[in-house]
C-alpha cells in the first residue's frame, strides 16, 4: 500500500528561511512597483496643479491653447487623440477580428501557426519604424487621395494619415488577442455544434463568437489603449497643428486636416520650452495626466474582460 504523497510539505530549516526571504523580497518589490505607479500619479497631479488652478474646468473644456497668452484648453487635443484612435479602431477591429476568425476556426493548424507567427513578429516592429514608413508612403498616398477627392489638402499630414498608420500598427494586437480568445473556446463545443447539424459558419457565428465575446471585446479594447497612447508614429504624420477644434464634432472633413493629439503635443519641443515656467509646465503635465487617465481606463476595461474570459454577461 502506498501512502499518498502530501501535496504541501512544510519547508523546514534553511529552506524555510530562504523561502520566506524570497517571499518577503517579492512582496517588497511588488509594493515598490505599485508605489512607483502611484507616486508617478501623485507627482503628475501635484505638478499640474498650477494649470488646474489657472484654467479650472476650462482646462478640459477649452479648445484654445496659446501658451504665450497663458490660455490652456486641452479639448482640441483630446479630440485629436480620440479621432485618430477612432479611425484606427474602425479599420483595424473588423479586419483583425475577421482575420482571427479565419486563423482560429478555418485554417488548418499549420497555416494557422504560420499566420500567427507572422502577425506576432510584426507586432514587434518598433513604432518609429511605422512612423518612417508613414512618412515614406502613407503621407503621399493620403495627399494624392485627398486631391483626387477634390479636397485640395494642405499636406499629407492629417488626422486621417495618423489614423490609418495606427490601424496598421494595432492590427496585429487585435488579431493575435482575438485569435487567442477564439482558441480558448473548447473544441468539444464546436464538435457538439457540428454534431447537431450546424455548418461550420453557423458554429462560428452561434457558438464560437458568442462564447469568446468577452475576449474579443478585450482584444479591441487593449488595441484601442495602445492606439490612444501611441506617440512617435503619430507625431511624425499628424501635422501637429494646434487648436483644430472642428465646427461640427462628427463631421468627416476635419479628419482630412492636420491636427494635434495629446501624445504628439507632449512629444513636441514645447515640453522643453515649458520647463522653466510652473504654469506652462503644469499645463503640459496635465496633458500627460489626461492621457494616462484615458489609456488606463480603456486598458483596465480590456484587461478585466480578458481575465474573466467567456461570454459577455
Amino acid at each position: 500500500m502506498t501512502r499518498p504523497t502530501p501535496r504541501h510539505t512544510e519547508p523546514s530549516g534553511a529552506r524555510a528561511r530562504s523561502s520566506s526571504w524570497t517571499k518577503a523580497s517579492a512582496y517588497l518589490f511588488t509594493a515598490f512597483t505599485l508605489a512607483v505607479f502611484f507616486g508617478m500619479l501623485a507627482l503628475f497631479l501635484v505638478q499640474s496643479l498650477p494649470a488646474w488652478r489657472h484654467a479650472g474646468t476650462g482646462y478640459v473644456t477649452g479648445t484654445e491653447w496659446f501658451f504665450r497668452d497663458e490660455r490652456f484648453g486641452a479639448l482640441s487635443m483630446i479630440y485629436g487623440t480620440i479621432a485618430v484612435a477612432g479611425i484606427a479602431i474602425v479599420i483595424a477591429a473588423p479586419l483583425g477580428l475577421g482575420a482571427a476568425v479565419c486563423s482560429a476556426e478555418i485554417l488548418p493548424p499549420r497555416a494557422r501557426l504560420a499566420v500567427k507567427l507572422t502577425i506576432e513578429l510584426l507586432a514587434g516592429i518598433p513604432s518609429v519604424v511605422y512612423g518612417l514608413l508613414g512618412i515614406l508612403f502613407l503621407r503621399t498616398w493620403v495627399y494624392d487621395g485627398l486631391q483626387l477627392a477634390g479636397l485640395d489638402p494642405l499636406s499629407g499630414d492629417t488626422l486621417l494619415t495618423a489614423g490609418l498608420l495606427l490601424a496598421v500598427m494595432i492590427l496585429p494586437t487585435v488579431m493575435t488577442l482575438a485569435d487567442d480568445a477564439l482558441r480558448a473556446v473548447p473544441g468539444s463545443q464546436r464538435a457538439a455544434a457540428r454534431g447537431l447539424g450546424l455548418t461550420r459558419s453557423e458554429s462560428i457565428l452561434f457558438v464560437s463568437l458568442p462564447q469568446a465575446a468577452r475576449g474579443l471585446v478585450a482584444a479591441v479594447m487593449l488595441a484601442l489603449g495602445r492606439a490612444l497612447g501611441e506617440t512617435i508614429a503619430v507625431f511624425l504624420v499628424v501635422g501637429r497643428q494646434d487648436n483644430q477644434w472642428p465646427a461640427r464634432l462628427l463631421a468627416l472633413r476635419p479628419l482630412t486636416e492636420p491636427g494635434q493629439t495629446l501624445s504628439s503635443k507632449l512629444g513636441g519641443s514645447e515640453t522643453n520650452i515649458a520647463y522653466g515656467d510652473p504654469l506652462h509646465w503644469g499645463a503640459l503635465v496635465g496633458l500627460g495626466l489626461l492621457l494616462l487617465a484615458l489609456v488606463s481606463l480603456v486598458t483596465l476595461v480590456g484587461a478585466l474582460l480578458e481575465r474573466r474570459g467567456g461570454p459577455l454577461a
Partner: protein
Amino acid sequence: MRRWLDRAVVVGTGTCVLVACGVLLLLVLAIASRGLPALSWSFLTEEMSRGGAAGGIAYNLVGTLILIATAAIVCTPLAVEPR
C-alpha cells in the same frame, strides 16, 4: 442559403487574413529593400562622421544595448510575483 453563408464566411474572413498579412509583409519588404543595401560590417562598427551624414552607428548600437541591459536589470527583480 446555408451553403451560401458558409462560403461567404470563409471568403470574407480569408480576405481579412490575406489583407492583414499582405499589408504587414509588404511593410517588411519595403523596409528590407531600402535598408538592407545600407547595412555592412563597417556601418555597424564605425562611429558616425560629418554630423551623422556618413560613417556608422557603433555608438548608437552600444547605447541601445546599455539601455536595454539597464532596463532588464532593474525590472527583472521587480517583476517577480509573490506566490
